């Protein structure tokens, strides 16, 4: 029953990534920039910090694979990148005092790593054909800004939810 609430929150974030945030994307307002939302990654990190690391990684695999199935046509890329990155960062983050600034920093590093990993794998497979400098300007920077904004917004509600579930 406890898990169900987390599952629903993650499911809603997963759906928001592909629907609302694509209707209101930067491109639809005429900018040639792509900000890809990694809400699942950030929510998984928060769950790892405030609730349980094992549960977080378990959700990372499930929702990463769901992203692969629904939004892409190559399986496993997001599942692998999100799980690996959140595992490493949860290991490192354990040694810090959990404060909003620390979580924000961890989320920025995680977004940076996942975006870079996905770009790397897709370049190898021939799906992404943007050169590296253009990628940093048009993809990486807007993505980092969007996701850090999301982290600040969802920090308090998600922390409250996790702490309520833990009791």
């Amino acid at each position, binding site marked *: 029953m406890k898990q169900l609430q987390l599952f629903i929150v993650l499911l809603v974030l997963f759906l928001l990534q*592909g629907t609302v945030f694509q209707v209101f994307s930067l491109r639809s307002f005429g900018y040639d920039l792509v900000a890809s939302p990694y809400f699942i990654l950030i929510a998984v990190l928060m769950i790892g910090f405030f609730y349980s690391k094992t549960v977080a990684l378990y959700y990372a695999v499930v929702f990463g694979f769901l992203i692969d199935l*629904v939004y892409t046509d190559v399986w496993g890329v997001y599942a692998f990148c999100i799980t690996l990155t959140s595992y490493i960062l949860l290991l490192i983050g354990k040694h810090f005092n959990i404060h909003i600034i620390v979580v924000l920093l961890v989320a920025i590093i995680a977004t940076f790593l996942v975006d870079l990993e996905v770009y790397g794998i897709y370049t190898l497979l*021939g799906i992404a054909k943007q050169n590296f400098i253009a990628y940093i300007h048009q993809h990486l920077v807007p993505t980092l800004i969007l996701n850090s904004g999301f982290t600040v917004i969802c920090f308090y509600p998600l922390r409250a939810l996790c702490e309520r579930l833990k009791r």
Partner: protein
Amino acid sequence: MPPFFFNKKLILLLTSLILLVALIGFSLKERKQLSWPEQIIHDTSGWLQVVFNRPAQYIMGFVENVEDVKNVYEENKVLKKHLQDYASLGAKYGDLQQRYTSLEKQLHINSETDVLASKSHIALVISRSFDGWNQQLTIDKGRQQGIKKNDAVVTADGFIGKIKNVSQFTSTVALITNQKSNNQISVKVINKAGTNGLIESYDSNKNVLLLEKLRVNSKLKKGDKVVTSGIGCVYPAGLYIGKVKSVATDRYGLSKVAEIKPAANFDNLDYVDVVGRQALTCNGSEGDSR
């Protein structure tokens, strides 16, 4: 044996890497249709996505309307001019239609068996992949509504892509801006010479489609309109793709390459039209190669 191999986490990492490569390899394979678990996942997430997407699209529509109000006056002037042309164009069309049918009758052509006949379904876009790399949409019509794999997808402005996967109630559209797929579309340039050709790829840096391997003496010029020709056996004839932006000789000087600017706007998609061929099915290789 060094202690290296007893590290459980390392083994797990290596196993998952192998699994990743295997999964990528499996999913890149060309498949005829989706397996049923995939169809269930696609349809379920499709239904949930509608719930989130509809309100967002309404709000976006409202924002666009407010933007539009600003340039109503300018637009009205242009439209009035177009309307005057429309009457004469309508008369001309009626005349041509009449002549065409009478000629057809004289030649005893049975117009019932139109090999280029097509059928269209209006569908709602319910989601779009969120990274810039995968250019794909999900629409809310599937096999139950008569959508087939490789049907053409158009908007009011022009051609945007093809149906890639079909589930029971939703289907996935691969846009022509997808950088991976070879968008092979057999096209016709509308000018006096009537050049035929094959669009082979999309240049994402310039946002143009490339019409390659044209003869050196082919006469196309900037501004010519390009439509699908229908002779590639997959897409119906006469779907508008865009205008020729520039023509150049290729690297070796043996053929010409034309850049085509797509007419459709890929950024604000809400409703799309899925057009499938009805009569003729043959083993065309247009569009489905990888």
